[in-house]
């Protein structure tokens, strides 16, 4: 069950770069400000990695720092842990250290890359030629039209061919392997695969060879919220390093810097929603998720009271639909299907957090706690239904009916308890 719960909460983090890229509008006219020319996702991640201090993750960082300082660096790593906790930020800082040929043992020991110099400059500009961040959204800028038309729900093997391993595209073009090119700037080459659990089986198998016999001075970081979805053959070739949610104290420390100028109520709600994930807290503020919760909360209260929440499924469906339409309007290259899934993941995460909070309450009966404990399974069923291409509205209506089944009779039990 735990696995299913975590699945429903995946993907709730700030879409670093993409959301900012999407926010870039076209402003016709002579005074149009020039737009950033680099990869927006790299720019956002690089600035987080280079210009801000990393909070938490002391153990993973210590392991990486020791390997770098001792010169015993393994060529392939899996960074796994909950979504939005900072795995990719650590991966980018790790990449900055590996890619900069001037990195010293002291830099490794402090896990601090040089903040000046060409390596940092091109990272901040999002044009570093030796650091590649492979993510599902890259399909939108693929040279292969078949990839561009995809829904950006997974990491197809075509993206790996284009950005790492080379090969023949679906339209018969031969691609060189970027992994087997010498580095442009003379340091190391680093390939970061974000949400690596989204690699399909063909992609994972295609990656095996390069993980087995990597070119010199080339490193791979697979960032995954669900490392168990990677093939055992992939996992066995990588050093696996775990990341945990930040503690309440660490989240507060992060919020001092990351959530300045935010309304206190909204901030408090975002911190509860985030559950130790700065990425999720950032997303909560950027995407005004507190407003989502305000529209959902009355329905959730009725559900919890065993009452029929008229219109609950419609409210959730409208939130998903509005979110997806806005995402596509902001950025025509965005996938509406991917935005739908993301919005659904946000709603399911809110409901899961509500269940989790309820289970921590001390005033509930054993029966009520059991009811709340069943909620994550209900949410996972709804997500599975959408994954199986069940119509979203039907899946949400099914979720509501399942929830009502679980809470059926809660009146009587509360009455009996009273």
């Amino acid at each position, binding site marked *: 069950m735990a696995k299913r719960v975590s699945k429903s909460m995946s993907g709730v983090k700030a879409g670093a770069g993409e959301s900012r890229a999407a926010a870039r509008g076209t402003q016709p006219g002579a005074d149009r400000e020039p737009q950033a*020319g680099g990869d927006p*996702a790299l720019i956002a991640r690089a600035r987080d990695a280079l210009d801000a201090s990393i909070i938490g993750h002391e153990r993973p960082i210590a392991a990486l720092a020791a390997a770098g300082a001792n010169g015993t660096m393994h060529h392939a790593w899996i960074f796994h842990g909950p979504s939005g906790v900072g795995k990719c930020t650590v991966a980018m800082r790790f990449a900055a250290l590996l890619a900069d040929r001037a990195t010293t043992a002291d830099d490794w020991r402090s896990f601090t890359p040089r903040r000046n110099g060409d390596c940092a400059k091109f990272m901040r500009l999002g044009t570093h*030629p030796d650091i590649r961040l492979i993510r599902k959204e890259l399909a939108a800028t693929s040279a292969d039209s078949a990839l561009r038309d995809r829904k950006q729900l997974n990491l197809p093997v075509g993206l790996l061919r284009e950005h790492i391993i*080379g090969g023949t595209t679906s339209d018969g073009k031969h691609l*060189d392997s970027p992994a087997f090119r*010498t580095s*442009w700037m003379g340091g190391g080459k680093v390939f970061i695969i974000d949400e690596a659990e989204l690699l399909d089986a063909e992609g994972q198998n295609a990656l095996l*060879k390069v993980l087995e016999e990597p070119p010199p001075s080339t490193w791979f970081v697979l960032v995954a919220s669900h490392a168990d979805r990677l093939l055992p053959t992939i996992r066995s070739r990588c050093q696996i390093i775990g990341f945990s949610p930040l503690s309440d104290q660490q989240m507060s420390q992060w919020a001092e810097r990351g959530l300045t100028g935010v309304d206190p109520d909204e901030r408090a709600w975002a911190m509860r929603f985030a559950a130790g994930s700065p990425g999720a807290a950032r997303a909560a503020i950027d995407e005004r998720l507190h407003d989502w919760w305000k529209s959902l909360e009355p329905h959730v209260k009725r559900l919890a009271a065993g009452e029929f929440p008229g219109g609950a499924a419609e409210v959730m469906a409208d939130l998903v639909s509005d979110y997806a339409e806005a995402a596509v309007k902001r950025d025509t290259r965005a996938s509406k299907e991917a935005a739908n899934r993301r919005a659904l993941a946000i709603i399911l995460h809110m409901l899961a957090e509500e269940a989790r909070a309820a289970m921590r309450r001390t005033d509930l009966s054993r029966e009520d706690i059991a009811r709340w404990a069943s909620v994550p399974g209900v949410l996972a069923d709804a997500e599975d239904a959408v994954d199986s291409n069940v119509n979203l509205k039907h899946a949400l209506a099914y979720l509501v009916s399942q929830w009502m089944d679980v809470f059926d009779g809660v009146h009587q039990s509360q009455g009996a308890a009273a």
Partner: protein
Amino acid sequence: MTTTTDGLHLICNRPALVEALAMVSAVVPSRSPAPVHMCVKLEASNGTLTLKATDAEIGLDLHLPSVEIKSEGEALLPAEKFSQIVRAMDDATVKLELHRHAATLQGAHSTFKIFGHDPAEFPGTADTTTAVPDFQINAGQLRRMIVRSSFAVATDNTRYAIVGVLFERKGRRLRLVATDGRRMAMVKGDCASPADGDAHFIVPAKTMGVLNRLLDDPETTVRVSRDGNRVVFEVGDSATLVTSLVDGNFPPFEEVIPKDLDRRATFDSSELAGAIKRAALLTNEESRSIKFSFESTTLTLQSHAADMGEAEIIVHASAFEGEPMVVGFMPAFLLDVLRIVESTEITLEMKSSKSPCLIKVGADFLYVLMPTALGS
């Protein structure tokens, strides 16, 4: 954003600009998550306009001297749209002015404005100041060597080390070698001003294509330098190409060159090519090879494609030494080499139907071709 690029103002010969943009566009990727990689950078200074493009694996600087620079500066413009506009204009010259990263292109009766990026964001191409000279070579000779080698580069990317052309320099002797595992082309030549020691590096196939296009003037000198992990080709004063290299070990190609070959057949190149083309008409995906039967000075080519038919073509060899033999070859692999040889005669040297065939053209080119298995 900076306004340092404001002030770029120049008048350029339009056909020359069209040609230069076509050249740099060979480097620019059609799509990229980083918009600057789809851009061309313009740098106008000291009476020269330099166009720069990079895809993070190849960088190209192209210099245009015939430009009237009214005000020096830089611009970073989307290559495809810029190129389309300049091609579509019908004026002899084009005037380009920059204001806040937006370029105005003006002809006699047309004006275009395209929005660019901050030139400071351009990732950079070659830095010849840090490159260490390795050797020099005449452009005509280098082009001939490229043509005679790069056609054999592997397109199957599962063997990473052979997706480029090996440059191997020993003193003044330079060899370019390419293979796809089923055939190998090797061409030799001399270079000038070699650095101490030997050198070898594998240049990716895409770079070879771009470099070949830069070698129009056979009298130009090409200076080849090493810049860390990269190689720099300076083509006279007109272009500088910098490339990353294939990161791998080229297979020991000398071991593949067959020795003790006891059969030699010499043909007129165009006659043999014509005969192979005719025989290849009746091959298909299942039976792609042609059966070569050598007997005295007669070569019989036989092909067979199930459900289509079969062909038998006879070619006369101008000379044949050794015992008769039967061997199978892929027609495309022989036609590739016949297409690039400039000699009127070609000699095939063989040992058996299972050992590789050697084709030598002059003293500086050899081609090794693996035979195919013949059906019953």
